């Protein structure tokens, strides 16, 4: 008798699950992701991944039941047990880094999680592989959000610029003349955010971070003359 009741209860649950299409609950993940890179003066690259957001979920649902097509209310099975959502980030640069997990939180909680991996870049023109992925893992149903794995190649390219420097109104300097002693400059975009006080040097060496073949960011320092570009 007891076994029969158990089986009947199971069958009803399965019926509800299948008919409602949402056996494991109706969850809508709302998460933002962001990957950013930074290159320091020692040719180290930092790859930072951020994932944050929340999950919308509902515990109850209605379904048609009874001989008069009445509306009945059911509760998703996961709502009656402890559930946690854990942010997880894969952040690897040239084999350094890996998966990191944030703090498990309640399903309705707002999660903020980020990781940074720093690795040395080899001299140009060599590149290193870099991969990222962000997930939110539910303790009951597994992955509920996946930013999808992204793999790229990161490298550094050097560009030398020469006179005349163009002084801006805010002590900023810009250059539009290349000063490559050898090689060809891969990145020739305008230098962003460089301030030289009290004056602009005649020559600068700009280190550019190249991600997926695109010159992203650069910083520059004074140089004594032209130098090798790549």
């Amino acid at each position: 008798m007891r076994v029969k009741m158990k089986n009947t209860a199971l069958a009803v649950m399965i019926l509800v699950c299948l008919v409602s299409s949402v056996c494991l609950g109706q969850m809508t993940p709302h998460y933002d992701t962001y990957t950013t890179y930074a290159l320091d003066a020692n040719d180290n690259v930092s790859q930072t991944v951020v994932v944050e957001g929340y999950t919308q979920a509902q515990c109850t649902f209605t379904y048609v039941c009874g001989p008069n097509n009445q509306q009945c209310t059911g509760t998703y099975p996961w709502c009656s047990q402890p559930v946690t959502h854990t942010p997880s980030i894969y952040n690897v640069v040239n084999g350094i880094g890996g998966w990191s997990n944030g703090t498990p939180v309640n399903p309705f909680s707002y999660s903020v999680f980020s990781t940074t991996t720093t690795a040395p870049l080899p001299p140009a023109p060599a590149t290193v592989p870099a991969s990222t992925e962000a997930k939110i893992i539910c303790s009951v149903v597994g992955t509920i959000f996946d930013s999808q794995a992204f793999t790229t190649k990161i490298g550094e390219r050097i560009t030398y610029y020469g006179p005349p420097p163009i002084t801006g109104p805010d002590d900023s300097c810009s250059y539009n003349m290349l000063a490559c002693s050898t090689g060809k400059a891969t990145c020739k975009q305008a230098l962003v955010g460089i301030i030289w006080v009290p004056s602009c040097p005649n020559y600068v060496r700009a280190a550019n971070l190249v991600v997926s073949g695109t010159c992203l960011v650069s910083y520059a320092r004074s140089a004594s003359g032209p130098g090798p570009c790549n």
Partner: protein
Amino acid sequence: MTHRTLIRSVIALLALAQTFLGQQQLVPKDQLDNQTVLLTPAKTHNHATDDQIDGSMHPELIPNIAAYRLFFLAVGLTANPSAGEKTMQSAQLQQLGFEGKDSEGFTRVLQTFRAKYNDLVNTYNAKVPAQATGFAPDVDSFLSERDALVQNTLDELKVELSPAAFNRLGAYVNVEKTRMKISTGNQRSSTNK
């Protein structure tokens, strides 16, 4: 026929029915109330799809307030930053060309932002029940407060930074939008309009 066989048969029949039901979108999402179940085609884990804006495809659709928030979170240091996070922030400041007062002001403002942001999130999460009960805190109010904090931080930076540095920050964050993916559901509704 044993109970087990009976249950298996029921499952098989219902799975077949589900295959057909799963082809239909029965009710538009915006016509549903909280008590109505969404009958969407089956997907992985049966989760509803979320509208994502991919900044690499449409950076112009990423709201500024969301872009600054993500950038501040990536660059603003927590109370106990790792060596890697410190290196990253220092490199970001270098890239932005922030030196002297600009560098100090930016670091200070973002440190305050990060502390306030954590407080805001912790306060919101404290209202969340320990177990999923169907009760969800007022997420819209939280998102409004969150975006107000980002806006206040931006206003503070406008005062702290030199005009040139503030403009560079804007240009930089604008470019960074290409590496952001945002959920429309994680934006305050007014920012999507």
